[in-house]
């Protein structure tokens, strides 16, 4: 096997343990793998960023805002968005090197399972959609690619709509038009939103608002990077 990131050969030590209990083949070599930092200890309970307090200041702010309070139950991310992951996501998403997602698979699956094992039994996985133009450009939707890694069925319940000309709209229109998503039909199950990066948390919250408008009781999110 070759390392997906640096192209070096990954040598496999054959021991009696792995002969009888084969591990899944490694996708990254021993020098690249440690550059990805799984988010593990002392995280904010709500957004899973590294934090000294159980809820970080950003999340405090979201939860004190009348409009956003309780919109998103919590977010779980897999890796810290460090410079290595930034490089890998850029090549994966913008250059379109689809196969790189496999480097994230193992840790993503375990993290997802640990966090959502119970919830996923009745929840629907919904990847954040791309606009048609972006989708054509990239050739794939990165959020769907992640959802597909997790081994759970997912449904595309959301649609991304074009903002249109901002200036011609009233203030009320503008506030609602800032939300780029639309939902068809109604939803009566919890939803786990899937996306590649949680930066400010605004995207998943916009999506959550739309889902709740059509009856969704609870919204969570799961992203690759935080």
């Amino acid at each position: 096997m070759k390392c997906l990131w640096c192209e070096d050969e990954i040598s496999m030590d054959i021991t009696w343990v792995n002969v009888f209990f084969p591990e899944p083949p490694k996708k990254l070599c021993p020098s690249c793998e440690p550059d990805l930092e799984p988010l593990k200890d002392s995280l904010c309970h709500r957004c899973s960023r590294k934090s000294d307090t159980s809820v970080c200041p950003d999340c405090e702010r979201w939860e004190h805002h009348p409009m956003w309070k309780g919109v998103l139950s919590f977010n779980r991310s897999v890796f810290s968005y460090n410079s290595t992951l930034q490089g890998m996501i850029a090549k994966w998403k913008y250059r379109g090197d689809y196969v790189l997602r496999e480097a994230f698979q193992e840790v993503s699956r375990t993290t997802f399972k640990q966090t959502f094992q119970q919830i996923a039994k009745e929840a629907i996985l919904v990847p954040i959609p791309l606009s048609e133009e972006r989708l054509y450009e990239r050739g794939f939707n990165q959020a769907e690619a992640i959802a597909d890694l997790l081994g759970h069925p997912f449904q595309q319940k959301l649609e991304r709509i074009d903002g249109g000309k901002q200036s011609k709209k009233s203030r009320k229109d503008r506030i609602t038009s800032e939300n780029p998503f639309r939902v068809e039909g109604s939803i009566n199950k919890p939803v786990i939103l899937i996306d590649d990066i949680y930066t400010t948390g605004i995207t998943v919250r916009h999506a959550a608002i739309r889902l709740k408008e059509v009856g969704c009781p609870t919204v969570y999110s799961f992203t690759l990077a935080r």
Partner: protein
Amino acid sequence: MFQKVFSSFQSLFNSSYDWIPTYTSQTSHQLDPSTSQLFAGKLLLRQDIPLDEQDFQALCTMDYFQPVQAIVKHQFRFTCRRCGNNKKTLFSEIPCSRCHQRHVYCRKCIEMGRVLACEPLYVWTGPTAEWERQETPCTWQGSLTNSQQQASDRITKAMVNGNEELMVWAVCGAGKTEMLFEGIAAAIAQGKRVCLATPRADVVRELLPRFQASFPETTMDGLYGGSEDKRGTAQLILATTHQLIRYAHAFDVVIIDEIDAFPYHGDPSLPFVTNRAAKRDASMIYLTATPRKQQKSRVQANKLATVFVPVRFHGHPLPAPKLHLCFSLQKQLKAAQLPEALLKWYRKRVNPKRQLLIFVPTIELAEKIVPTLAEKLSISSITSVHSSDPERETKVQQLRHKEIFVLVTTTILERGVTFPSVDVVVLDAGHRVFDEAALVQIAGRAGRSPDDPTGEVIFFHDGRTNAMVEAVQSIKAMNKKGRTVK
């Protein structure tokens, strides 16, 4: 059909380019000649073609663009026709939202825009591009040495005749750029299109202003990763080899700088794209100071026409390396200690004003040995540099501007960089990274300036290798040849 075979690359890559359409559309249609110049000799993804869909479709209908399959499969193997990649690990599958099917894409050339199996590459088959025929395009006023002049004449002949391969075997510091001017001028006078391909971006950056000054009326593009103008529509193109990924049968003259550094990292894409960029009847000029074994044996078998330039432009011979045996050298270096012989030599060297360039085999040793050198030689302005050093350019500049007195380096500075007055030391010259070519190139860093045309080159080793012996022999052989032509 005549198919050109470049046997210098043969063992690496035996490719045929007969999938590239050669005909020209017979549709007659008034077209701005700059459109032909924009697309002629290019191999492009749709997204690289700056036309709206309507104009593009119109040109396709007239057969001015011809689609060719981008990724082909035969015998369980894929090949990317844009970069030549046929390694299994460098293809992957994508569930493509353009065509709604699952198919392969090329990972190798993805940095230059992704090649998908569902989309073709486009070749221009419209009206052929016409390039200006200037009578005297070159305004360079300098003069050539006898040896340079002989080479220049031979190069000119090859460029004018076409369909020729010529190797220019010129020592480090021979002044090869100036030897190309007459030939390029003659080619431009014939309305030919010329490309100079080099492995390194700094060479493009350095050569571009020199060419612009010497060919003021000729359209010219410098292409390298990160260069601003990527259209590459000029008559004279200076490019790093990677940039030729967008060309097919474009050039009447292709000059390949440092042909021996070519398959670097054993990357077969580079010869693949360079050969493809040449027209079928192109003149190929290979420049080298240190040809590889394979190239030398073609020369000896008279299978590759060669012209020698055995003297430097300032007329002085190449400094021949001295070998110095140090027992326990490995042990000392491991402990970050220096051989006594180095200190002894340093104290008594001929010209103590010269700066010092010290080559070591590994990054680790480069970093480790600096404090010891600083202490033992009592020098504070000393630092090390290696390939992944972000300050590499700055440090090279600092040495040039004499802000640094000693620079410890890995083989990355073996080529292309010129410092006016240095002595050169190789520590552990027996290490396998120092092959014959590397050692000759390293020795070639000394004595570059007419103001200080000599310099000491000293190899410290713990057992002489064939590479060392051959390097010394080949330098002496060139100097001998040089005495006869002067």
